[in-house]
């Protein structure tokens, strides 16, 4: 098993790397096309802004490689947002791997960023999804974001803050989590473990 954390030039690579180390997996961090193509699993991390992140991918010539990736791929936070079609944050086209639009969250009088621990509601249709094995209704996970994807048929779990948004998405072997599993205690570790066991 070779897990490659795609070096997107974003800032939370260490925390993701350490989370996999705690699970006994020594991930490679790389932006090398050959290394990425040969990985058995890919992780797209992300902290920062969508436009900058897409520019980083472009600069590293990674866009086509990620779009053509056949191995299981998990995007985290901004990394998840990059899997969708488009982000309002900087009005930028994303990778288009999972249908969806990233928009600024509409939360009324609530505070943004949506920062802290919030509960997951697993979709009925995703109760048996391998990525969510052992993760139940009302498990708390850690979110830090101001932009989100509206729930759709690719949503595996939702979260509510002002309105419902997609907390976990998936289409085939392309997966994404809006929260930070690497910072979500035992529940997050479980999701990462499920990803390591994921067979499509």
């Amino acid at each position, binding site marked *: 098993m070779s897990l490659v954390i795609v070096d997107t030039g974003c800032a939370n690579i*260490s925390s993701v790397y350490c989370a996999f180390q705690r699970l006994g997996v020594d991930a490679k961090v790389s932006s090398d096309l050959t290394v990425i193509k040969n990985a058995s699993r890919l992780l797209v991390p992300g*902290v920062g802004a969508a436009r900058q992140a897409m520019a980083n991918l472009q600069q590293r010539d990674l866009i086509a490689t990620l779009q053509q990736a056949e191995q299981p791929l998990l995007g985290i936070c901004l990394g998840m947002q990059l899997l969708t079609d488009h982000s309002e944050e900087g009005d930028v086209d994303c990778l288009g791997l999972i249908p969806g639009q990233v928009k600024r969250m509409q939360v009324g009088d609530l505070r943004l960023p949506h920062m*802290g621990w919030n509960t997951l509601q697993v979709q009925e249709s995703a109760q048996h999804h391998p990525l969510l094995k052992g993760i139940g209704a009302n498990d708390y996970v850690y979110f830090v974001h101001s932009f989100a994807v509206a729930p759709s048929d690719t949503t595996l779990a939702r979260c509510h803050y002002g309105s419902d948004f997609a907390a976990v998405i998936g289409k085939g072997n392309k997966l994404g989590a809006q929260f930070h599993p690497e910072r979500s205690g035992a529940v997050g570790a479980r999701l990462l473990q499920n990803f390591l066991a994921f067979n499509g």
Partner: protein
Amino acid sequence: MLARRIIPCLDVRDGKVVKGVQFRNHEVIGDIVPLAKAYAEQGADELVFYDITASSDGRVVDKSWVRRIAEVIDIPFCVAGGIKSVADAGLILEMGADKISVNSPALARPELISELEHSFGQQCVVIGIDSFFDQATGQYQVYQFTGDESRTQKTRWHTLDWVKRVQELGAGEIVLNCMNQDGVRQGYDLTQLQLIRKECKVPLIASGGAGAMQHFADVFQQADVDGALAASVFHKGIIPIPELKAFLVEHKLEIRP
């Protein structure tokens, strides 16, 4: 529902966790990594590490402990102290911190806040504010260099104005440390926090004064803060985090068990 956060704060000096009373007379509490790990295991929602020497003495500070913390804990953590540039912040975030908190350097050069926001996103940028109620003028005033008593000084900013300004510049969260209450365990400064809450559209974290479990319930219920930060009551074992959380759940607060 978004949970209210319980945030132990670990003041760090020369790689050790220390705690002073009203910012003075620091005593060593212990090593950073085992303490961080213990707090994560006890149910802390987040940790803040303040390098209290960094801003005040101007030297380059060894931050390799950030990486060691990132290796062992699986909850978010924020690092504060001596972050004066995008490069400083980038290094800390690369080592695995989730957020960086800026205090004195933002007062010296407010545009730093915008630079950090543009580089790392608003969610990474926490602004720490040390606020002191001046009885003579009846004003809340922002102080800087509070890590070193001999250099601590009043700034030109009234706290409310600074709170508004940092939000305009791109702050993603504000930690308001009420200096009059710090370390004396008489409760959070509810009056001031209520005042600030009205103008604070980003998450607001209360700091300074926690002494009893009721103080946490009060600050969540009466000042509507998103998180409550405390140090000595946790370090000295006065309030165990699991008991505190059970207490807050009983008080109908949204808390991660």
